[in-house]
C-alpha cells in the first residue's frame, strides 16, 4: 500500500526528472551542437523512489555548474526546479557566447568541450546511479511483494487459527453448559436422595415404635393368656368336681333305687308279683338306662378331661417359662436400679477425688513453703544454739558498731575542722576590723550596715504593701472584669435569643412569601369579594323567603285563607320568628338568673342584718307588713313578744299579753317619756338583771316583783 502510494509520486518524480534531463540535453545540444547520448532517456524505466528522485534532483542541482546557482541568484530566481535552473544556464551560455565571441572562440570551444566531457561524465555517473536506484527499486519491490505475500499468508493462517480457537471456544461453551446441566441434575438427585433418606429414617423410627408397641402388646397377650389358662384350669377342675359329685349322687340314687326295689320285691313278692315284677323290670330298665347314660356321660367326661389333662403339662411348661422371664425382667430392673445408684455414687466420688486432685498442687506449694520456712527456722535455731555462730554474730555486731563509731568520729572531726575554720575567719575579720579603723570606721560601717538594713526593711515593707496593694488592685480589677464578663455574656445570650426570634420571624415571613418591605394590595371592589357578598346576600334572601313561605303554609294549614300576606307580615313584625323566640328565651333566662342572684344576695343581706340587730340590740325583730314583733334575748319564754306598728307617721306599740306584765316600764318610758328605744333598752336591762344571779351593774329602776 505504501509502495503504491509512493508509486504515484515516484512516477511523477521520474517523469519530471526525465523531462528535466531532456530539456537539459536539448539545451546542451542547441548550444554545443554535438549530439549527446540520449539513449538512456528512451529506455523504459520503472519509477524511481521519491527519495531517490529527490536525491537525484538534489544531486542534479549539486552537479549543475555552480555558476548557474550564482546566476540564478543574480537573476532573482531562487526556485529549486530544473526549469529555472535551465534558464539561467541559457543565460550563462548566452552571456558566455556574447562576451567571448569576438575574442577567443577557440578557448570557448575548448571550454565547451571540457564542459561537455564533464557533463558527459556526470551524465554517465547519473546513469549509473539511476540504474543502481532502479535495481534497488526492483529489489525493494520484490521484497515488498514477498512481504505482501507473507503477510497474506500470515493473515490466512491467523484467520484459520482464529476460527479454530472460536470453534474450540464454542465447544467448550457447549461442554460448560452440559456440565452445568449435569451439575443441576446431580444436585436435584442429591436432594431427592436426601429426602428419601429422611423418609426412610422416619419410616424406620416408626417401625421401631410399632415393633416396640407390638412387643408390649405381645407381652400383655402372654400375660392375659396365662391368666386365661389358669382360669380355665380352675373352671375345669370345678367342672370335674361337679361331675364327680353328680356321678356319686347318681350312684347313690341308683343304689337307693336298688334297695327300694329289693325291698319292694321282698314285700310284694307273693301278691301282684307280676305287676310288681313288671314294675320292677321297668324300674330295672330305667336303672339300666340311667346306668348306661351315666356310663356314657362318664366316658365322655373322662375323655374330655383326659384331653384337658393332656394339655396341662404344656401349660405348666409355658407357665414356668413365663415365670422365669418375669423373674429375669424383675432382676434386670432391680439390677438397673442398683447400677444407676452405683453410677451416681461413683460419679460423686470421682468429683470429690477431682477436687482433691485440684487442691493437691496448692497443698504441695504450701508444703514447700513450710519446708523452706522450717529450714530457715532450723538454720536460725542452729545458728542461735551454736556457740560459734553466737560469737560470729557478736563479732558482726561489734564490727558494725565500730564502723558506725568510726564514721561518726570522722564526721565529728570534719565538723570540728569547719568550726575551727570559721573561728579563724571570724578572728581574722575581727582583727581586720580593729586594724582598719577604730570605733569610727566600725561605727561608719555599722552605720552603713544599719542604713542598709533599714533600707532593706523599707523595701521589704514597700514590696509587701505593693504586693498587697497589687493583689488588692488585682483583685479589684479581676472582680470588675468578671462582672463585666458576666454582663457581656448575659447580653450576648439575650442578643442571640433576639436574633433567633428574629430569624424565626423572618423565616415565617419569607415562607409566607412576603418580605418586610412588601405590601400586598388588592382592589377592594374585586370579583371574588363581590361574588362572595352576592352569594351571602342570596343566601339570606332565600332564607327569609323560606321563613315567610313556612309561615304562610302554617297559616294556611291553620285555616286562614284570606289576607295571608298581611298576616305573614304581621307575624314577622311581631317577631315570632324562631330566631326572635330564641333571643327572647335567652333574655328571659338571663333575667331570671339575674333575679335569682339578686334574691340570693338580698336574702343573705337581710339575714345578716337581722342577726346583727339581734346580737347588738338583744331583740329578735320580725317584720310582717309593717308590723314589728320583738322578742328579747333575755326573755323568760318564747311567747313573750312586743308588737309595734306604723300608724301614720309614728311607731305605736300594740297590745300584747306580755305588755301587760311590763306596765310600769310602759308607763314611764312610753307614756311619759314617749321614747320606744329607752323602753326597749330599759326592758333589756330589767330582763338581764332578772336573769343574772349577781347584782347587775345598772340597778333596776323599778323594784317591782315580777
Amino acid at each position, binding site marked *: 500500500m505504501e509502495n503504491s502510494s509512493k508509486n504515484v509520486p515516484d512516477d511523477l518524480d521520474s517523469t519530471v526528472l526525465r523531462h528535466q534531463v531532456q530539456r537539459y540535453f536539448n539545451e546542451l545540444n542547441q548550444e554545443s551542437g554535438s549530439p549527446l547520448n540520449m539513449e538512456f532517456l528512451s529506455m523504459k524505466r520503472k519509477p524511481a523512489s521519491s527519495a531517490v528522485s529527490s536525491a537525484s534532483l538534489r544531486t542534479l542541482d549539486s552537479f549543475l555548474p555552480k555558476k548557474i546557482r550564482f546566476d540564478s541568484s543574480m537573476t532573482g530566481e531562487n526556485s529549486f526546479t530544473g526549469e529555472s535552473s535551465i534558464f539561467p544556464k541559457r543565460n550563462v551560455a548566452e552571456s558566455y557566447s556574447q562576451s567571448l565571441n569576438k575574442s577567443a572562440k577557440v578557448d570557448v570551444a575548448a571550454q565547451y568541450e571540457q564542459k561537455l566531457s564533464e557533463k558527459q561524465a556526470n551524465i554517465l555517473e547519473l546513469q549509473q546511479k539511476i540504474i543502481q536506484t532502479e535495481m534497488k527499486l526492483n529489489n525493494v519491490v520484490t521484497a515488498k511483494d514477498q512481504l505482501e505475500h507473507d503477510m497474506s499468508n500470515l493473515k490466512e493462517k491467523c484467520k484459520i487459527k482464529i476460527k479454530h480457537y472460536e470453534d474450540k471456544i464454542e465447544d467448550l461453551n457447549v461442554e460448560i453448559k452440559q456440565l452445568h446441566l449435569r451439575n443441576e441434575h446431580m444436585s436435584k438427585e442429591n436432594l431427592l436422595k436426601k429426602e428419601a433418606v429422611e423418609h426412610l429414617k422416619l419410616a424406620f423410627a416408626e417401625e421401631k415404635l410399632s415393633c416396640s408397641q407390638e412387643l408390649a402388646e405381645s407381652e400383655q397377650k402372654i400375660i392375659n393368656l396365662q391368666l386365661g389358662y389358669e382360669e380355665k384350669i380352675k373352671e375345669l377342675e370345678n367342672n370335674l368336681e361337679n361331675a364327680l359329685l353328680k356321678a356319686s349322687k347318681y350312684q347313690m340314687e341308683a343304689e337307693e333305687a336298688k334297695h327300694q326295689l329289693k325291698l319292694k320285691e321282698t314285700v310284694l313278692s307273693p301278691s301282684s308279683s307280676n305287676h310288681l315284677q313288671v314294675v320292677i323290670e321297668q324300674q330295672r330298665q330305667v336303672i339300666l338306662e340311667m346306668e348306661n347314660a351315666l356310663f356314657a356321660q362318664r366316658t365322655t367326661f373322662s375323655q374330655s378331661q383326659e384331653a384337658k389333662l393332656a394339655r396341662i403339662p404344656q401349660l405348666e411348661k409355658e407357665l414356668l417359662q413365663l415365670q422365669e422371664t418375669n423373674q429375669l425382667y424383675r432382676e434386670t430392673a432391680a439390677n438397673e436400679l442398683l447400677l444407676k445408684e452405683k453410677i451416681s455414687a461413683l460419679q460423686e466420688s470421682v468429683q470429690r477425688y477431682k477436687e482433691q486432685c485440684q487442691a493437691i498442687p496448692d497443698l504441695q506449694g504450701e508444703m514447700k513453703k513450710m519446708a523452706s520456712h522450717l529450714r530457715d527456722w532450723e538454720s536460725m535455731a542452729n545458728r542461735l544454739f551454736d556457740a560459734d555462730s553466737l560469737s560470729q554474730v557478736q563479732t558482726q555486731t561489734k564490727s558494725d558498731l565500730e564502723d558506725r563509731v568510726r564514721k561518726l568520729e570522722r564526721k565529728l572531726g570534719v565538723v570540728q575542722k569547719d568550726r575551727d575554720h570559721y573561728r579563724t575567719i571570724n578572728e581574722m575579720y575581727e582583727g581586720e576590723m580593729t586594724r582598719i579603723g577604730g570605733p569610727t570606721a566600725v561605727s561608719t560601717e555599722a552605720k552603713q550596715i544599719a542604713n542598709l538594713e533599714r533600707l532593706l526593711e523599707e523595701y521589704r515593707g514597700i514590696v509587701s504593701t505593693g504586693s498587697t496593694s497589687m493583689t488588692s488592685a488585682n483583685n479589684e480589677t479581676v472582680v470588675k472584669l468578671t462582672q463585666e464578663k458576666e454582663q457581656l455574656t448575659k447580653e450576648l445570650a439575650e442578643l442571640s435569643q433576639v436574633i433567633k426570634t428574629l430569624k424565626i420571624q423572618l423565616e415565617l415571613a419569607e415562607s409566607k412569601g412576603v418580605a418586610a418591605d*412588601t405590601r*400586598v394590595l388588592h382592589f377592594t371592589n374585586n*370579583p371574588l369579594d363581590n361574588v362572595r357578598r352576592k352569594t351571602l346576600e342570596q343566601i339570606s334572601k332565600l332564607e327569609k323567603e323560606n321563613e315567610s313561605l313556612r309561615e304562610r303554609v302554617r297559616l294556611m294549614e291553620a285555616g286562614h285563607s284570606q289576607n295571608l300576606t298581611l298576616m305573614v307580615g304581621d307575624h314577622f313584625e311581631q317577631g315570632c320568628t324562631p330566631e326572635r323566640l330564641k333571643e327572647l328565651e335567652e333574655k328571659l333566662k338571663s333575667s331570671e338568673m339575674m333575679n335569682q342572684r339578686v334574691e340570693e344576695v338580698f336574702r343573705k343581706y337581710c339575714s345578716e342584718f337581722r342577726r346583727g340587730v339581734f346580737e347588738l340590740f338583744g331583740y329578735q325583730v320580725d317584720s310582717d307588713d309593717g308590723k314589728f314583733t320583738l322578742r328579747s334575748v333575755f326573755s323568760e319564754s318564747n311567747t313573750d313578744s312586743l308588737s309595734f306598728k306604723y300608724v301614720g307617721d309614728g311607731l305605736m306599740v300594740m297590745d300584747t299579753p306580755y305588755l301587760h306584765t311590763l306596765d310600769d316600764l310602759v308607763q314611764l318610758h312610753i307614756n311619759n317619756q314617749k321614747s320606744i328605744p329607752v323602753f326597749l333598752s330599759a326592758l333589756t336591762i330589767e330582763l338581764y338583771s332578772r336573769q343574772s344571779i349577781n347584782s347587775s351593774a345598772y340597778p333596776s329602776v323599778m323594784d317591782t316583783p315580777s
Partner: protein
Amino acid sequence: MATGSAQETQNFVTLKGSVELIVDFFNYSLNSILYQRGVFPEESFIPTQHYGLTMYMSKNPDIKKYTDEILPHLKQWLTEGKIKKLVLALCDVNSKEPLECWEFRIIPEETPTGEIKQQGTKPLKDIQQEIRNVLRQITACVTFLPLLDCVCSFDLQVHTTNDAGAEGWGDVQPISIQNAQEVQLRSFSTSIQNVHTFVSYKSV
C-alpha cells in the same frame, strides 16, 4: 391594547413601551386563565386575535369594569418600579379556600445606578415572540392542573413596595396554598423588565 403599536415603529422599546407590553400581556393572560380554568362560562368569552394567537377575552361587564379600573394603577406602579409581584388567586367561593395561584414576578434589569432603565435593547419582535410562547404555555398548563369543580372566583393581589398605594386598594393577607406544587413557566424579558411566570396549585 393597540397603544403598544405606537412604539412598534421604533425597533426598541422604552420604559413606557415595556410597561404597556407587560400590562397588555397581563390582561390577556388573565382572560386566558379565566377561560382555560373554567372560572366563567365559555360563552362569556369572545375570541380575539392578538400576538398572532387567538386569545379569549371576557365580555362579562363585571370583569371588564374590574380590569379597566385596575390596569391604569398597575401601569403607573410598574412605571415607578414599585411592583414586585402580581398574584392572580383562584379561590373557592363557598369555602374561601385558595385553589390556584398564578404569579407574575417582575424583576427589573439591573443597571449600574440601580434605577430603572429607560431604553431597551431588544427588538419588539423578539419580545412578542417570547410573550407568545408564555401564553401558549399557559394554555398548555391545563393538561396537568387539577380540575376546579366548584364555583370559583378570582382576586388579584399586587405585591408592592411599602410606598405604593391608591384609592380603592386595601391591604390583604397574601394567599398561601396548602401542599402547593409550584411550576415555573417560561419567562420573557423586554430588556427593561423581566417577567417570570409561576403557577402554584394544590397537590392532592
